[in-house]
């Protein structure tokens, strides 16, 4: 596993954890579209954060589940992974 969260992985997590289908290309092309527009609610994002914490074996920043957009979330997670590497 890469120590970097990609749009592909985020797309898969949204599908698995929250039942929301958004392809990776859409997330990459328009990373500022809020999660809310896709129907991902706060519990859905919380589930994705939990899944990633289990996967990486460490905590993400406490405000990870409050991110509004894919870009915000990817930046925060990847900065955190980078800092911890």
């Amino acid at each position, binding site marked *: 596993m890469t120590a970097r969260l990609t749009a592909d992985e985020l797309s898969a997590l949204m599908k698995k954890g929250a*039942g929301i*289908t958004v392809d990776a290309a859409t997330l990459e092309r328009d990373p500022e579209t809020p999660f809310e527009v896709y129907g991902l609610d706060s519990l859905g994002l919380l*589930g994705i954060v939990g899944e990633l914490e289990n996967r990486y074996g460490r905590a993400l920043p406490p405000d990870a589940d409050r991110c509004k957009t894919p870009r915000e979330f990817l930046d925060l997670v990847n900065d955190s992974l980078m800092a911890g590497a």
Partner: protein
Amino acid sequence: MSKDRARRPVITGIGVVAPGGVGTDAFWKNAREGVSSLDHVTREGCGHLPLRVAGEVRGFDPEAQVEQRYLVQTDRFSHFAMAAADMALADAGFAADALARDPYAVGVVTAAGSGGGEFGQRELQRLWGQGSTYVGPYQSIAWFYAASTGQISIRGGFKGPCGVVASDEAGGLDAVAHAAAAVRRGTGTVVVGSAEAPLAPYSIVCQLGYRELSCVEEPERAYRPFTPQACGFVPAEGGAMLVVEDEGAARRRGAPVRAEVAGHAATFTGASRWEESREGLARAIRGALEQAGCAPEEVDVVFADALGLPEADRAEALALADALGPHGSRVPVTAPKTGTGRAYCGAPVLDTAAAVLAMEHGLVPPTPHVHEVCHDLALVTGRARPAELRTALVLSRGLMGSNAALVVRRAV
């Protein structure tokens, strides 16, 4: 209810997810023909449990009925409820977006008796098998009794008065009364009913302590109320959702007015105190008839609670005699639920749906598996009985002591 005739709550739509059929047509066909859907328990992980027979909903494809984002965050009982709500709204003639124009005019009421046991079990297994960080966040909402009301209203965008009735099995009827009251107070439309999914390992184990539960091996012998062989009840999953709205509004939009929700009353006589349920049920019947402005002789058919324990069956027969007088032993009584099992709060809503369909078709459906009746009741067995039906009385009791009666009348 008879006091305020300005707004009259009527049933305009029915949606059913029941053992033996998804959809009202399949449900009514089975009920009318006395086809039983009781069968051996096949749900995963249940094979070693002493409950052998149940009414399982088979052939229900959640993915074909409900969007994935709602499926992942809900239990099977909410899947049933969302699908049944869609069917009821379509049956009532509402286009998918018609209600979105005035979301505050639409409310949702559901009753629940067991909540999301299957979802909860899966998450609890993760908790104790893998650790707390493996429990998904939707555990916080999916198991909860209120989940179906919440999800139906979120999914439909409904913002009117919502409610959740947790008053035991008879709560299915209390929910319908709650919806009728909301309509009388001014709410345009209420989506109301109950669906349950108590056939998963954890949920079944929770029921094994009920002495009323039948653990008989043979489907045709497991649930035979009102007979000398009565040995308890068979549980089931599924249920029904109804659309209740003001009669005037329904007629103005050209919707089919199926039946009036005319009267309801509920009482409580304590868990498993079946002898005492006689008085409780009789009082509920009297109260419901009074609200409906209906004389005992006007009741054309009774959908019995039919618990299937000799003392409970006796109490119900006596309650009918107490409340209806000599008419109690003459009026056709039926219990189609012996062919589906008891879906807890969903059961009396299925009976309400069956009562409306029976009035529309002029047919009292039979009571499957029941042949030798040992109470002073005109129980319809064998095959459906043609009859002019204008008023139906639906009865329900819960294992925890609730009793309720609902009067529905054919719309004229």
